[in-house]
Every structure is written in structure tokens, then in C-alpha cells.
């Protein structure tokens, strides 16, 4: 069986994946043991990659105005609409909105086309939502967007500070590396700074559960503490930095008590953290979306970086400020210049850079200055200024803040092109032209992970339908626009070589991003390229950034930035926080198709503190509505003591394809950081209230169903979908609505108890169950979810179909809520194993295999063990 090494397309860890190929199919995936990011490990999402392939839900043909068209017609239409908008309204009326999901080569040609040949800087990317505050902070501090750490530093450090990062769920393999390192080095300390008690707190020696948005106070106070306690590295500061005094002035006299007051922390906890930081040379501060997705995200990142610059803890092993990115190729996008305020290859819009890039490209219409950043771009579209918008590999209708604004923008824009691998997304619904893009496994290129490692993503199977790689689509459009000579690439190899050459072009050490050594790769070398970390200059030593104390500012000194900490503006109601779940990715367009990835967290839920819930009269699973001026979401209440009082957590994954009103972005105002333009996605105010529910329902169906209900939420299960639904109307009314959608050509069997409010129906086609619907006034009266999940393979004897209406079968015992997605081990099984004597994660693993693959369920296993011990003691 031939294997092929490639790279995982999910988070910014960028794990190497070994795909096992059999009969032209990917039969399975394993972690690539030789990849520096993961050395063989994979998380559950990566493990399930093979299950995301296939044609289910795929966009397989170009669709123009709702009709399937040929590629030729699609490209021609795109070209003429683009040209028309540009000629009639000027270059700033056109825009590309790209994605950290694109490969570097895709990104490069799209960026080059717009900025070099269409005369507009309007290329932005969903990476704006992810890490642009880190980019801005890096540029302010280092003069260039350079990440000075690697995962090895995270392992080697003696103090790891995780700031706004739930790596256990969002970067599981890095978390596993941290876990292993801590096991090997029990003296290693871990501090988690997060307003939520997350799974990552499992490892923490100290969890600082601060008030949302107050991180900068903590780090400004730390800088002050370091100065007050003689912990500054004066030599390093003098030789390699500037700005310390102003930064200290800005920090003022914040002491631990003052910090405690503004952050809501215990002064002793703050003091402990400060003491540990002061005393630990080898400290890594890993920061992520928790601080970046903020109206003051850039300042927060700089507040963290400042503490490293002031202690000289940068550019050496086991230390440094480490921005960990969310997306697989956020870094690659930054390298090609995919952000509207960058030009290309870490060059910006100063005239020398513009001239240099223009000469390199042979540009015919060079953008003179930065384009619009994501939120501004969509605002401009909503205002009617953007007439042509091409969206690639992203779902802004779900992911951008203020979804209502985004919908207005997409509706108003005259011609919207969406390139995607998935046919039905909330964004695709607005597209005038849909282009089938080849997804992971069907295309070739490179990505760069959070530690600057460039890895190949390789084609494993032929593209399905008429899907094409994005770089090819872009170059064909360029050709249609008469720019063929500038986009004459035979394949991604040629694009990569050009990209590498541009990074080295007139560089001479002036830019850290230099991969000139790769500009001469021949096709075979590119095909076989092993993971490599930049910088990789064509000549001279490839040194780790900043190890020589040289930064990429004009004077070569790093800037310690004066940060004036600001608390978020006060508001009414609860504080809304948002984030990821362990087993889902972004808007679920791919992971949402994999049954086992929908088991850990199934239906759209909103977490809140149990005391707040009690005050609102809410029990676990009740329907709640969270709303503010932006919009409304409705989800099931999840009571989580890890959420502080007055706060609520809304997961970001749910789109209109998976739930009725679930887009977290509906609640997020379009407030952005002034430097980075990154939206404040992790902070909003909203009111929360219980929803009166007259009907609850569970539906197994072969097809996803259209429903006009107060709440529904759907997951993929084996052989179909499972939908939980709730509405304010009585079961009889809900039934009447659903009955119309439930497949007319089915043989039906139903049960009704109209006074009891109990409606059930199963429909079959021959020997196959087509749907099973259970509606009840009471949620508790619905069949057990585990039973519903197995219905796809249920084939009762001919006379027994109506027995399914019992919603119950004595033979099958449910495994309970899925905890370990890799081995599909449920809570019930785990509880039984604990009863039978398993008393540790290891013994549970030995008995059930749970936690033995990706390990991301280990915090939950530990929680279950603790719970069992408490129950035992009680």
C-alpha cells in the first residue's frame, strides 16, 4: 500500500500526515513520524481526515446564476464582470477575500493578480480575523512579522504562559507536546490566562481567570513588576531595544493589587505569576486568539512581547513570545502578502517596496497603497462601493462579525464569486457565480505553520467532478483578462519558485522572510520537498530570527511599545466570549460531515455559569436566546462552572447549514483593532433569556431538512443526519410543518398522543429507514440520542417497523455521550470501567483505548475520574 506524506489542513500547528492510499482512495491517515510539528501525533480532526473526502455535499461544477455552466463560460463571465466593475467604478470597486485555508501558491497568484495587474490593494483574508493583531504587533516590535519561536521552545521552556489559548482543543498536538514535556520535566510550570476554565487548565499550575479583555493590564503590570524587581535585562535593552521608558510610563504604577482589581484576579495569584515570570529565564508566552481577537489586540500582543524584550528572553532556545495561529496557512498568507496592508513577501507599501515588487512582477497596474481590511471591505460593499467580490475558501457570512452587515454586503455587491469545495454554505447562498475548488487531498502546494515550517500539501486523489485548484482558476481568469504572459505557470512548482525568488529579491538580509534557497527547486525537488523552516537564504547561514539581537526595524532595534491598557467598553447584560470546540473546524463545512466529530459536542449550545443559569431559571439543555443590537442566537444551555459568572460562551462553528440561529458572529459588533483591523470577536455584550418551548423533537433523516423553527441543530450521523429541534408551537403544529418535508414517497408509520403532546413518525423506503421523527412537549420524553444516532443502520423485520416508534430498544445499550472521538468511547462505558476499578487515565486507556490516540479527551477523562472520586467520597 503506497503512502503519501502531506500536511493537515486544519489548525496552525501544521502536522504532517501520512495518507495511506489504496485503490485510488485514501484508506486512512496516520501522523507523519518525520514531521517536525507532530512527530507522528495527530488530533482527532486530523485522524478523521479520510472521512472528509468524497463527494457528499461537494460543489462539483461551476454554477452561474443558479445554473450549471462550463468552466469556459464561468471564467468568461467572471472576467467580464470583473473588467466591467473595474472600468466603470475603478480598481477599488473590486476585491478578493481570501483565506488561511488557501495554499501559498493559490494565495500568491491571487495577490499578484490584484495588486500587480488590477491596480487595487483590495486583497484581504480571513486571517484578518485570526492573527492580524499578532502581525501588527510583530511589525511594531520587530520591524517585521516574524514569529521568533518554535514548538521545541514550548517544550524546552521552564515556564509556559498560555495567554488566551485553549490549545488542548484548538492546537491539540502542541498541547500534547506540552503535556509530554511537563511529564518529563515536572518542574516545568504552566500558567493559563483565560477568562474561562478550559480543558487546557488541566495542565496548569496556575489558572488566572481574569475578566475578559483585561490581559494588557496583567502584562503591563508585569513589565512594571519586572522593572521594580530588577528583573530587566539592561544589557539587552540597551543594545537591542528602544522604548522601554515610555512603555514603563504607560504602565504607570500598576502593582499586583492594582492589576488584581482591574482584572478581577486575586492579588496573590497575580503575585505568584509575576514571581514565576521574574524568576524563570526560560519562559515562553504562547498567545492566541484570546488576546488577538480584541479591539486592543495589537496592544495586548505587544504587552506580552514587551515583557520578553525587556528581559532579553527572545531569540534563544526555550524562550520567547509565541503567537500561535489558528489556520493551516495563515503564515503562508502573510508571507505572500495576502493581507490588504501588506504588499508581498513581507514587503509593505513604502515606495521602494512597491517599486521593487512591481519590477519583479513586471506589473502592469500596480496597487499604490493598502486596500481595505476585511471588516472595512464588507462595510464598503454594504455601502455600495465594492461592485465585484471574489471570495475563496472561506465563509464570511458566518465568520465575520456583524453577520447582518455581511449579508447586506453580499446582497448589495453586484457580482459575488465564491470558490469553495462545499456546495451549500451561508456565503454560497449569495453567490452569483460558484466555482468548484479542489479541497485538501485533491490539490498540490505548500503551507507554512505557526513555527515557520513550510510543508507540502500533496494531491492524494484526482479532483472530483470539475473541481480545480484555486491557483489554476486564478491564472485562467488572468489569462481571460489578457494577462496570460504574467501568469504562465505550468503548476504550483513554478509559482512557488517565483514566490521564493521574490522573497530573496533585493533582500540582502533586509527582510527576515527569505527563502531564496528554494527558488531553484526543480519540479522533482518540489514534489519531494521535506518540511523546512525559514529563513532559508540562497547564500549565507540560515539563522534563527533575533538570535543575534538584530531586528528588522530601520535601526535594527526592537521596539518596546508603550501600551496604555484599556478595558473593554462597559455594556449591558452578559459578556459574550466565543471560540472553538475540540472536534470541529471553523464553519463545519468539512468536519460537519464526519459523524464522529459531531459526537463530542453535538447540538448548538451556549455555555453559562450554573449560578447565572439558576437565576434565569435555566436547566441544562433548556433553550436560551442570546441577543443584542447586532442579532440573536438561540442554543441549548450548557451549564459550565468553568465559565465565570456574568459571562457566556458561544462556539463559532455553527452556520445556517447546521442550526437555525447559531452564528456567533451575529452577536459580534464590527469593532476592530485600530492597528490590525482584527475584529473583537471574543467580546460582546448581550442579554440572555430562556425561550419558552412547546415542542422538542429529534429527527433522524437521510437528507438535511429545511425547517422554519425557533431552534434546530443538526449533526452528521452514520447514514444521515440527526437534528434536535424545538419550537414555540405545539407538537401537532410542528408535526404538520415537518410532515410536508419528510419525503412524500415514504411508507409512514406514526404515533400520536395529541393530548399528551407526543408525535412520532417513521418513514421507510422499502427496507431502508428514511426518517424517524419524535416530537414531544417534554425534552426528557424524547428517545435517547444514542439510539437515534444508530437508526441509519436499523432494519427491523418487515412487520416490526412500527416498533421503532417506541423510540427505544432494549437490546442496544447506549455508550453515552462520546468522550473519546478517536476510539468512540462514551461516558457510560467510561463510568462502567471506573466502577470496575479503572482509577487513572492510563488504566482507562488500557481498558477502553480512550485517550490513547490524540489524547485530547484526557482532560475530560481526568474530570470523570475526579467526579467519580468525589461521588465516592460523598
Amino acid at each position, binding site marked *: 500500500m503506497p503512502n503519501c506524506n502531506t500536511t493537515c489542513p486544519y489548525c496552525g500547528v501544521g502536522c504532517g500526515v501520512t495518507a495511506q492510499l489504496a485503490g485510488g482512495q485514501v484508506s486512512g491517515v496516520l501522523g507523519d513520524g518525520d514531521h517536525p510539528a507532530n512527530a507522528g501525533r495527530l488530533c482527532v480532526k486530523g485522524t478523521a481526515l479520510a472521512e472528509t473526502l468524497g463527494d457528499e455535499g461537494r460543489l462539483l461544477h461551476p454554477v452561474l446564476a443558479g445554473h450549471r455552466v462550463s468552466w469556459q463560460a464561468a471564467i468568461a463571465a467572471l472576467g467580464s464582470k470583473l473588467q466591467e466593475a473595474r472600468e466603470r467604478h475603478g480598481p477599488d470597486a473590486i476585491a478578493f477575500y481570501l483565506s488561511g485555508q488557501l495554499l501559498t501558491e493559490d494565495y500568491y497568484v491571487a495577490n499578484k493578480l490584484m495588486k500587480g495587474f488590477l491596480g487595487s490593494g483590495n486583497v484581504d483574508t480571513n486571517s484578518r480575523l485570526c492573527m492580524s493583531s499578532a502581525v501588527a504587533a510583530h511589525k511594531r516590535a520587530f520591524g517585521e512579522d516574524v514569529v521568533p519561536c518554535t514548538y521545541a521552545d514550548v517544550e524546552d521552556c521552564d515556564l509556559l504562559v498560555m495567554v488566551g489559548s485553549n490549545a488542548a482543543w484548538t492546537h491539540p498536538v502542541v498541547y500534547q507536546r506540552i503535556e509530554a514535556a511537563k511529564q518529563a520535566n515536572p518542574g516545568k510550570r504552566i500558567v493559563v490566562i483565560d477568562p474561562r476554565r478550559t480543558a487546557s487548565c488541566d495542565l496548569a499550575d496556575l489558572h488566572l481567570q481574569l475578566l475578559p479583555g483585561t490581559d494588557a493590564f496583567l502584562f503591563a503590570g508585569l513589565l512594571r513588576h519586572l522593572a521594580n524587581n530588577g528583573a530587566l535585562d539592561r544589557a539587552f535593552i540597551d543594545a537591542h531595544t528602544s522604548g522601554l521608558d515610555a512603555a514603563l510610563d504607560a504602565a504607570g504604577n500598576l502593582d499586583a493589587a492594582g492589576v488584581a482589581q482591574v482584572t478581577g484576579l486575586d492579588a496573590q495569584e497575580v503575585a505568584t505569576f509575576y514571581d514565576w515570570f521574574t524568576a524563570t529565564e526560560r519562559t515562553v508566552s504562547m498567545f492566541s486568539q484570546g488576546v488577538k481577537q480584541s479591539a486592543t489586540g495589537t496592544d495586548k500582543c505587544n504587552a506580552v512581547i514587551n515583557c520578553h524584550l525587556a528581559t532579553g528572553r527572545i531569540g534563544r532556545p526555550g524562550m520567547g513570545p509565541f503567537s500561535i495561529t489558528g489556520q493551516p496557512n495563515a503564515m503562508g498568507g502573510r508571507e505572500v502578502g495576502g493581507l490588504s496592508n501588506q504588499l508581498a513577501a513581507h514587503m509593505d507599501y513604502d515606495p521602494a517596496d512597491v517599486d521593487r515588487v512591481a519590477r519583479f512582477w513586471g506589473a502592469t497596474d500596480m496597487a499604490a497603497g493598502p486596500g481595505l481590511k476585511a471588516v472595512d471591505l464588507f462595510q464598503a460593499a454594504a455601502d455600495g462601493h465594492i461592485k465585484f467580490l471574489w471570495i475563496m475558501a472561506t465563509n464570511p457570512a458566518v465568520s465575520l462579525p456583524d453577520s447582518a452587515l455581511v449579508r447586506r454586503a453580499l446582497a448589495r455587491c453586484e457580482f459575488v464569486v465564491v470558490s469553495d469545495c462545499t456546495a451549500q454554505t451561508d456565503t454560497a447562498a449569495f453567490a452569483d457565480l460558484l466555482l468548484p475548488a479542489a479541497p485538501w487531498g485533491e490539490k498540490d502546494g505548500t503551507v507554512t505553520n505557526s513555527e515557520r515550517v513550510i510543508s507540502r500539501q500533496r494531491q492524494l486523489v484526482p479532483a472530483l467532478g470539475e473541481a480545480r485548484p484555486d491557483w489554476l482558476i486564478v491564472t485562467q481568469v488572468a489569462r481571460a483578462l489578457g494577462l496570460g504572459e504574467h501568469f504562465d505557470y505550468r503548476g504550483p512548482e513554478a509559482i512557488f519558485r517565483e514566490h521564493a525568488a521574490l522573497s530573496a529579491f533585493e533582500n540582502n538580509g533586509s527582510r527576515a522572510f527569505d527563502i531564496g534557497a528554494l527558488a531553484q527547486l526543480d519540479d522533482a525537488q518540489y514534489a519531494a520537498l521535506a518540511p523546512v523552516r525559514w529563513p532559508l537564504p540562497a547564500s549565507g547561514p540560515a539563522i534563527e530570527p533575533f538570535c543575534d539581537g538584530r531586528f528588522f526595524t530601520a535601526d535594527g532595534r526592537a521596539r518596546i511599545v508603550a501600551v496604555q491598557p484599556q478595558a473593554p467598553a462597559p455594556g449591558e447584560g452578559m459578556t459574550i466570549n466565543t471560540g472553538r470546540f475540540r472536534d470541529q473546524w471553523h464553519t463545519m463545512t468539512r468536519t460537519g460531515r464526519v459523524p464522529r466529530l459531531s459526537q463530542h459536542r453535538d447540538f448548538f449550545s451556549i455555555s453559562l455559569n450554573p449560578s447565572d443559569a439558576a437565576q434565569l431559571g435555566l436547566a441544562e439543555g433548556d433553550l436560551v436566546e442570546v441577543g443584542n443590537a447586532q442579532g440573536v442566537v438561540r442554543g441549548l444551555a450548557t451549564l459550565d462552572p468553568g465559565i465565570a459568572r456574568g459571562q457566556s460562551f458561544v462556539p463559532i462553528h455553527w452556520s445556517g447549514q447546521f442550526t437555525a440561529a447559531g452564528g456567533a458572529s451575529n452577536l459580534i459588533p464590527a469593532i476592530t483593532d485600530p492597528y490590525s483591523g482584527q475584529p473583537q470577536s471574543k467580546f460582546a455584550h448581550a442579554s440572555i433569556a430562556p425561550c419558552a418551548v412547546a415542542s422538542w423533537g429529534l429527527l433522524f433523516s437521510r437528507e438535511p431538512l429545511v425547517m422554519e423553527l425557533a431552534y434546530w441543530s443538526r449533526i452528521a450521523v452514520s447514514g444521515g443526519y440527526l437534528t434536535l429541534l424545538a419550537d414555540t408551537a405545539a407538537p401537532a403544529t410542528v408535526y404538520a410543518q415537518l410532515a410536508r418535508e419528510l419525503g412524500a414517497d415514504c411508507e*409512514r*408509520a406514526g404515533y*400520536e*398522543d395529541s393530548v*399528551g403532546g*407526543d408525535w412520532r413518525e417513521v418513514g421507510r423506503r422499502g427496507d431502508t429507514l428514511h426518517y424517524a421523527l419524535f416530537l414531544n412537549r417534554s425534552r426528557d420524553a424524547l428517545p435517547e440520542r444514542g439510539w437515534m444516532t444508530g437508526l441509519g443502520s436499523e432494519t427491523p423485520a418487515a412487520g416490526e*417497523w412500527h*416498533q421503532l416508534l417506541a423510540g*427505544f430498544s432494549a437490546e442496544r445499550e447506549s455508550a453515552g455521550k462520546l468522550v473519546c472521538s478517536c476510539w468512540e468511547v462514551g461516558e457510560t462505558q467510561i463510568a462502567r470501567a471506573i466502577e470496575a476499578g479503572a482509577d487513572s487515565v492510563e488504566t482507562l486507556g488500557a481498558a477502553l483505548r480512550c485517550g490513547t490516540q490524540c489524547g485530547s479527551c484526557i482532560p475530560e477523562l481526568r474530570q470523570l475520574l475526579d467526579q467519580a472520586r468525589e461521588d465516592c467520597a460523598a
Partner: protein
Amino acid sequence: MPRHRPRTTTAPPAARIPRRPETGDMRRKLVIVGAGMAAAYVLQELAQLEHDLDVTVIGDETEACYNRVLLSNVLAGENSEADLAMLEPAMLEPAMPETDSPETDSPGTVQFVTGTRVSAIDTDARTARCADGSEHPFDALVFATGAGVARPGVDCSGIIGVEVFRTLRDARELRALPARGRRALVVGAGLLGLEAAHGLNELGFDTRVLHRNPVIMNRQLDTEGGAQLQRDLEARGIHFDLGVQIAGVAADDNGRLCGVTLDNGERLPADLLLFATGITPNIELAAQAGIATARGIRVDERLRTSAPGVYALGECSQFGEHCFGLVAPIREQAAVLAAQLAGVQHPPFCLQDYPTQLKISGVEIYRAGELDDAAEQLVLRGNGVYRRLVLRDNRLVGAVLVGDKRGGTWYSELISGGGEIGALRAGLIFGRDVSEALAAA
């Protein structure tokens, strides 16, 4: 089909019951008039009791004590005649000479006189005279004369092809008829009509059922249950004309049936016409003997008629305003009567809400309690099944099950028990196991 209780061939020795002193005989004589199922049940019950009765059973059919309920299966070829036996074969053998020693504790004898009918009964002389001239003295006499097919309201006398279906002989004759390609009309979609229709359909007749009510088996089923059963029977090839009555019967020049006219004017061709519009209790003999009768022979709660020492049970009897047609109450009557005859304590007969439990053409039917449309309903339909439970005040009051009668007995218990349903409600319609498991969950 009723389930037979375990039987013993000899009664256990026990304290003798004193004989009537005025007879010189050592043993009393019991005559049972009629050798149908009711008689068989009495014999079964007596066989389990200590008594001093020598029994003579007199029946006009050649065969005695067969299971009439299964006749439609015999017609359909689904059961053999041998399957109809209700008594031990030895019991039915010709009577032995009465040479037994009366002093012994031997059980009473049972003598069958078949192929003749009792023509007169003298309740004073205590004799029963048969059409063949024989006379049978009795101490006690039981009417088990059953019922006949209700006469149709249309004149069809002398027309060849108008048949009845009541006896084994009828079944044999019907089976002997050429069926393939011929059209049979059954009038009446009650239990008997549908069973006959099933049998004829299986024989190969192109079978059609006429029914006055728009719902078949409307006495047992509700509208939807009737419709479900109708669909099942239609799926087996039986046709229905509902809400119509027969207005006339037409014969050809040879006096052979050729069709019928309906009250809506429609004409239907037919080669065979079978009336199953109900039964009429056979009471003439009792009436002639001066015994009180109404629709049936009047009996009290001990099955006593107006004449001392004379009893009646089964389809010929009438208790209060009730006549009987289904097996369950008749079995109960037999138990009361046998105890009465043997002088054994037994609760008196009372009317109960006997659940109807049937199987027509393979379709199970169960019905118990009242089907009150104004009460709360739990309904399951589809997959060839219709189940409806009726609740009032959180109690089960009625059940009708078509196509899947699982749980029927439990429902009857719940109905008669009258307890609150409570948490059993969610799974109630799926029977006891599911209901209790769900209630426990």
C-alpha cells in the same frame, strides 16, 4: 382460537356429592342437547370435576364437538379437519354398555348420539325424544343448541348457489365447488362473513363482501381499525362494497344464481352467494317445551332456565338482554354450568367486558373496553398496523388493535384494573415491556 385448558381424562377422587334421593338410580343422567362447542366446553369442565353424572350428548350433525371457529381455516385449506377436535378421541367413541359397577368412584360416562336431533322435551317426565324415535331420560338437561344463520331479508329460496356456512359439512360442500374464475359474494362483514370470505378467497373464488355499514366489523372495530383491516384484506384480493344492502337475487333459467341487485340499483354478478348477516339462536325446541325464551333461551346467573333442572348456554342462551357469539363468555358459562351440575362452589356467571380477540385472514384483531371518541386517544398507525388506546382521567378505558395485538391482554388487565397509567403512557401503545422500561428510564 381459544386456548384449551389442560385437561385430565379422569376426575380426581373426592368426596361424593349426594344424589337426589327421589331417583332410584345410583347416578344421575345429564342430557346435553347440541354437540357444538358449548357442549364441548361443558364436557371439558366436567372432566375436571368430581360428579355423579352420566352424560348423553345429542347432536344433529354427524360430527360432534368440533371447533367451529376454525372452519374458515379448513375452508381456506389452512387447517385440516383433524385440527378441529376439541375432545379426546376416546370420548367420542360409541358408548359402552352400562355394565359398570355403580359403587366405584369411576367418573361418569359420556355418550354421544349424533346425526339426530331432539324433537321434543318433556320437562315434567324428564325425557328428551329424538327425531329417530329414541328417548333419553334425564335428571338434568342442558340446551346447547347454538344458533343458525340469520335468514336474509330477500327471497332466494330454491336458487342454486345460495349457500350457508355454518357447519363442517357446509365447509366440505363449499370446498367441493369449482372456485377458479368464479365469483363469490358474501353478505355481511362481521366476523363470520370475513372468515368465510377469507376461506372462499383462498379457495380461489373472486370474492366480494357486501356490508350495510361503511365500516367492516363495525361492532368490534372503529372506523380506522375497520379501514386498516379492509386494506389488509384487500391486499389479499378480497373486494368490498360498503354501505350497501342486497335488494334482490337473480337466477338464470336453470334456477342457478347469476347475480344480485343492490339497494343503490347496482347489479353484481355472482356464482355463489353466502349470507353472514348474523346468527339466530336456536330456541324453537325450548319454546315448544314451555321454557321461557326471548331472542334466546332465558337463563339466570347459574345458567338455569325457567324449568327446574334445565339449563342453557352458548349461542342459544340469553342472559338479561345479552346473547352470545364469541367464545370467551361461553367458556365462562360452561365453567359456571359444570360447577352447578356437579354441585361445586363457583362464582355465578356475570357479564364482563370480554375482549374480542380474533385473527382474520392472518390479521390479528384485539378490542377491549370502550372506544370513546371524546376521550384522550393514543394512536399508532402504519406498517399494516392500527392501534388505538383510549384514556380517560389518566386511566386506560379502551383498546383496539389491528394487525399487531401484542399487549392486548395487558390492556384488558389495565382496563379492568382501572389503575392510573402515569408514566406508562409514553410507551403504553407498544405493550408492557416497552412501557415499563420507558417508565423506569
